[in-house]
C-alpha cells in the first residue's frame, strides 16, 4: 500500500497488487477501483459549498461505489475531502512525471 495523500483525518492509498485505492474516512476504510475513485471525485466536485455557507445545507449524504457505502459528512468534512482528492490526483500526476 502506497500513501498518495493525507489531509486532516482522511487518507488515500494505492495498492499496486490489487490495482485498487483505499480511502480512509477517519476509521472506516473503503476500497475503490480507479473508476469508483473517479466517481467519488465527481460527486465531491458537484457539491456546492456555497449552499452550506448560506445555511441551506449543513450535511451531505454521499453514497459511494454504486451504493455499497453510505456516508454523512458535514461542511468541514467536505472541504477536507475535496482537498484530499485534489491532492491525491496531483500526487498521481507527479508519478506520471517521475516514472
Amino acid at each position, binding site marked *: 500500500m*502506497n500513501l498518495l495523500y493525507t489531509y486532516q483525518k482522511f487518507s488515500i492509498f*494505492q495498492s*499496486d497488487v490489487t*490495482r485498487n*485505492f483505499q480511502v480512509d474516512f477517519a476509521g472506516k476504510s473503503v476500497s475503490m477501483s*480507479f*473508476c469508483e475513485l*473517479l*466517481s467519488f471525485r*465527481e460527486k465531491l*466536485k458537484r457539491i456546492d459549498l456555497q449552499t452550506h455557507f448560506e445555511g441551506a445545507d449543513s450535511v451531505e449524504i454521499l453514497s459511494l461505489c454504486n451504493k455499497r457505502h453510505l456516508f454523512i459528512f458535514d461542511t468541514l468534512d467536505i472541504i477536507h475531502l475535496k482537498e484530499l482528492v485534489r491532492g491525491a*490526483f496531483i500526487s*498521481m*500526476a507527479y*508519478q*506520471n512525471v517521475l*516514472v
Partner: protein
Amino acid sequence: MKDIARQELSIHIEVMDMLNDQIQKEAQSSTAYLAMASWCDQQGLENSAQFFYAQAEEERTHMMKIFRFINDNGGNAMAPATSAVNHDFTSLEEVFSDALAHEVGITKSIHKLVAKSRAEHDYATDAFLQWFVTEQMEEEQTMRRALDILKLGEKMSLLQLDERIAELNTAQ
C-alpha cells in the same frame, strides 16, 4: 509505485472535466435548437423548422461523440442536465442571430479545450478535438449565410425567405 491512474485513464483528468462540461453545452445547444425549431414550426416556417430540427440532432451527435470519447478512454462521462431555454422570438432573423451567437460561444469553448489539452500535453484529446474545430467553423458559416439571406431579402415575405432557407437544408 505503479502509475495506475495513467494506465486506467488515457486523457488528462482536468481535460476530462472540461470535456464533461462540453457534453453539457452540446446538450444545451440541442435543447436551444429544438425550441427554435418549435417557434419556426408554429410560424409555419417549415424549412427553417426543418433546419433547426436537424441542428438539434446534430448537437446530440456532438454530445455523444464526446461522451463516448471520455468513456472509451477510461474516464467518467456524466449524463448532462439542461436548463430552461428561450422559446420567444420576435423574428426569424432574431432566431438565426441567436443561433450564430450561440455557435460563437461554443467555438470559444472548444478552443479553450484545445488550449488546455495542449498545455497538459494531452495530444490524444487535442487530435480528437480537431474535428470539432472544423465543425464549428462550418456551423458559424452556415448561420452567417442564413443571416445574409434574411438581410438580403428584406423586401421579401417571410414565407419567401423561408423558401430560401431550404437551400441550407440541401447544403447540409
